[in-house]
């Protein structure tokens, strides 16, 4: 999907196209795989917090308060791949 295609979808509020694109991106061109990848990242994030470890909330709140939204959105994509990689099930070797 081209950037123009995505911007047109934003302009008309066609979130289905946007969601499909995100799944394709995260699933390396495979929408079903992308959906699983999103779930995998959330499961991994949840697993890391189940024992309620001490976390650096000061860092989190400071980052959220001080960084611009685009940087945080970019971080969100980084975190997705970080968590997927941590899960040990890495599909992003280009073989899909």
């Amino acid at each position: 999907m081209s950037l123009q295609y995505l911007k047109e979808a934003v302009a008309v509020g066609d979130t289905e196209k946007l969601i499909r694109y995100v799944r394709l991106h995260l699933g390396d061109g495979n929408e079903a795989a992308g959906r699983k990848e999103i779930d995998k990242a959330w499961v991994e994030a949840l697993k890391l917090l189940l024992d309620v470890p001490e976390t650096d909330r000061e860092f989190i709140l400071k980052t959220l308060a001080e960084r611009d939204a685009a940087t945080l959105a970019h971080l969100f994509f980084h975190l997705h791949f970080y968590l997927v990689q941590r899960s040990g099930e890495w599909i992003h070797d280009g073989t899909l």
Partner: protein
Amino acid sequence: MTAHSDETKQLRPGLWETVNERYPGSMITKDDFVPLAPLRKPLSESRLTFVSSAGVQPKGTMPFDVVHPVGDYSFRRVPSTSNPSDLEIHQIKYPTHGAVNDLNVIFPIERWQELAAESVIGGLTPNFFSFIGYNMDPERLERTLAEDIAEAVVADGADVALLAPA
């Protein structure tokens, strides 16, 4: 991604349809092709450069942004004298297993060095050039990345440029 209006020039018939199904709206039609430049002197006297979308870069340089949903429009200079062990790949959209074992399968830098040493080609530009092919804005790709690389290739004194998709 760019579609050629002349279907007979497709290397893989049906490729564009497949791409368009996976990535709707990614296709654009271009009619203003730049003709291939003829070789002005023998290859054995020509300085060669290599331009690749393999996402190869010197270790320690800023990794290509492989997670960005719209792509990365920067390129890296790869010194043509590099040893493969000086380089790494940042790319998640093509199989990299083989390239990690032997970079030459995707970025044949040692082969170019050998061909230059054997005078099969006249020499190598000081740098080769690499970027990642995952870019969702074809116009920006052409306007910035392609132009930037073209300028860098000219500045490096290339007589021949070999372009290789990953």
